[in-house]
């Protein structure tokens, strides 16, 4: 047995397509193992469907490898958090007058990208519900200083700097005073805080990032009595336009997580569906062909009924009526496909096998029907089944993606199909987020390609007549 497997493997490697197929499938399996070992599935689903873990990630960011192909470097996300020990964060206390102090948080970061950030958010945290006044100062390279806002902090405060219209108004007034004219477009806060303030800012096409060291000062006015009691911290996030290996989606989620975790799910779904359905169809066909007569009649009529049942509407109905997980979806797909056209095909082959003399010999020495079906009929067909199984894996991977795209099935699952569905719903192609659609599509195609190449080579080995073609 082992020797036969080895011989088969050696024969397989003679086909280049099989080699490529094996390489693709092996890398997908390694990716799957990596996903399963590093993060458990339950945690992935929880993380994927919640908001907090993703708050420091940019929205709709492209994958960071696009920077390799472009001379215009897109910004990465910069996170500065005073709760973490960081050289760029400085916390000082300055006495002002009797019993009044200023708690000063100084964030320093260098911004050397060619594009403006996506968004800027400052989050303020304090450990009491007492009210404090906070003043935020922004210092650009060249010591251009703006007091961008005064906030009242009570416990927690998120300051969406990017949508601060009040600051924008002050900025405009300042700009017109200095340059004598208005910009011919709507300057956003992100541009206002990062652009070079010379005549280039007046035109959308010439506006440039002022590269260099930026500082943000957060001053909190506190009383003496609070000095040792109150903990005030801040987190400044300058969201970039690229993130990670695969970018992010509209809910700031890292697509890499979904793509990596989609691999084991796609493979499991495809393999389980393909293996179960093929074997079930084969067993049903074998039993039907062997017993014949009434049993055969019933099986064939049931198969015909199942073949005309509309597969998709039934799946849609089930998924709308019941809350189903992806594994229940798999079960439903298997149940609906067991009595498929395969039963007819395999039965035709089994009817031929049934007439081979060795079956008669087996009856003559007293073999039971059960043993004839499993020991004499099925092993004969098995070699031709293996390529079929391999070739039909991508069908079911595609089916899962297609069903997800139609909104059938588990809304919480982390699959390639769900990523595509999100992308489609957010009109990703229209908005130009190509990576969002191309990456899962590419993985789907790669899976199909791998299994198709291996399957076709296996088919040639197991059905030698195909070799001549």
């Amino acid at each position, binding site marked *: 047995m082992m020797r036969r497997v080895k011989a088969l493997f050696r024969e397989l490697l003679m086909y280049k397509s099989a080699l490529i197929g094996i390489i693709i499938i092996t890398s997908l399996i390694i990716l799957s193992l990596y996903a399963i070992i590093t993060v458990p599935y339950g945690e992935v689903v929880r993380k994927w469907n919640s908001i907090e873990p993703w708050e420091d990630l940019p929205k709709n960011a492209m994958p960071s490898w696009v920077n390799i192909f472009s001379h215009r470097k897109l910004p990465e996300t910069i996170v500065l958090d005073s709760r973490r020990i960081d050289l760029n964060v400085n916390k000082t206390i300055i006495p002002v007058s009797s019993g009044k102090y200023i708690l000063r948080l100084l964030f320093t970061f260098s911004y050397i990208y060619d594009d403006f950030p996506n968004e800027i958010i400052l989050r303020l945290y304090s450990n009491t519900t007492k009210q404090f006044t906070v003043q935020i100062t922004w210092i650009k390279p060249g010591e251009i200083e703006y007091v961008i806002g005064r906030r009242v902090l009570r416990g927690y405060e998120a300051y969406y700097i990017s949508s601060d219209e009040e600051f924008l108004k002050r900025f405009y007034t300042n700009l017109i005073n200095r340059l004598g004219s208005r910009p011919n477009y709507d300057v956003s806060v992100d541009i206002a805080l990062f652009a070079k303030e010379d005549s280039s800012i007046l035109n959308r096409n010439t506006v440039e990032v002022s590269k260099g060291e930026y500082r943000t000062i957060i001053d909190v006015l506190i009383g003496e009595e609070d000095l040792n009691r109150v903990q005030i911290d801040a987190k400044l996030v300058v969201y970039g336009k690229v993130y990670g290996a695969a970018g992010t989606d509209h809910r700031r989620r890292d697509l890499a997580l979904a793509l990596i975790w989609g691999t084991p799910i796609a493979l499991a779904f495809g393999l389980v569906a393909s293996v179960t359905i093929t074997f079930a169809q084969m067993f049903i066909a074998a039993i039907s062909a062997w017993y014949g007569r009434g049993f055969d009649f019933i099986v064939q009529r049931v198969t015909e009924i199942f073949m005309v049942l509309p597969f998709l509407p039934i799946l849609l109905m089930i998924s709308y009526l019941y809350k189903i997980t992806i594994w229940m979806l798999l079960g439903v797909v298997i149940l609906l496909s067991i009595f498929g056209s395969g039963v007819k095909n395999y039965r035709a082959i089994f009817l031929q096998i049934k007439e081979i003399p060795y079956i*008669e*010999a087996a009856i*003559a020495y*007293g073999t039971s029907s059960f043993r004839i079906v499993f*020991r004499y009929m099925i092993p*004969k067909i098995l070699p031709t089944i293996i390529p079929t199984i391999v070739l039909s894996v991508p069908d079911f991977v595609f089916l899962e993606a297609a069903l997800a795209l139609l909104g059938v099935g588990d809304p919480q699952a982390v699959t390639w199909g769900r990523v595509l569905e999100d992308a489609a719903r957010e009109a990703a192609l229209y908005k130009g987020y190509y990576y969002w659609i191309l990456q899962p599509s590419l993985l789907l195609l790669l899976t199909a390609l791998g299994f198709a190449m291996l399957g076709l080579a296996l088919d040639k080995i197991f059905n030698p007549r195909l070799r001549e073609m």
Partner: protein
Amino acid sequence: MQKGEDIKSCNPSDLLCVRKLCVWHPIRKFLTVSGYIRALDDVSFDLERGRILAIVGESGSGKTTLGKTILKIHQPTKGRIIYDGKDITFIKGKEIKWYRRELGYVQQDPYGALPPFMNIRQILEEPLIIHGIKKSERIYKVREVLEEVKLIPVEDFINKYPHMLSGGQQQRVVIARALILRPKLIVADEPVSMLDASVRIEILTLFRELQKKYNLSIMYITHDLSTTKYFSDKIAVMYAGHIVEMAQTYKVLSKPLHPYTQSLIKAIPDPDPRNRTLFREIPPGEPPSLLNPPPGCRFHPRCPYAMDICRREEPPVIEVDGTHTVKCWLYG
């Protein structure tokens, strides 16, 4: 009444006694049966212990059906099959198992007769597993039987697959499988017709040796009268589902009675070049359709001696010369 007589007429020392056996295959049209194919009609014969009975006939004469009915692969419609004094005509299910062990089956096409996905050891172990023989005994029996069919050294063959063997070797495996349960009766359905002429005699000699060694009874089904001379004790000639003539081998070959047997013997090819221009009288026509057999004697459309009565009435089985029976009006 009739059946009682049949059983009485069986000799209890005979291994197999077949009386008025009919196998009719129904032709089904949707839910009704529109007719029958009479593959076997009124077949009666005896097979003594340790003897070889040759069943001779052209294709479609029902000889293979007869073999398969004895093997209980086909179900008989009517009649009696008495094996070793026990009526096994209609036994089914668990009761049949002891009978399966008593019979061996050697098929025509050795390659088709061996499952291609099993090696020789697995093929030979199958009957042993089915009849519940312990694992420790099995390998010993497999070796023994392979030595008997002269597939030696056993180690060279035991792990091979059927396609790695030659036709003659494959047929030896088929014989080994038939013998491994130590049966008393072997049904050999054209065991050498697919083999090269040179291998035929080897296989038949082997068969003969084994038959003598184990005192086997053999039903040797063939279309080739020339091999029966060396191999069989008794010949039954079949035509269109009937046994038309039955006697000791030498009697049939030296003094054939039925016109069909006579034409069969004439049809044996003769390698003597002096006879190359000799016209061979072969009766014209084809064997009749078994769905609609001709009335009277089934051979009459091809018979050179056909008389009026042959067209009207089926001939009875006539005993000529003690053990020589013939189904023909010529002797009536």
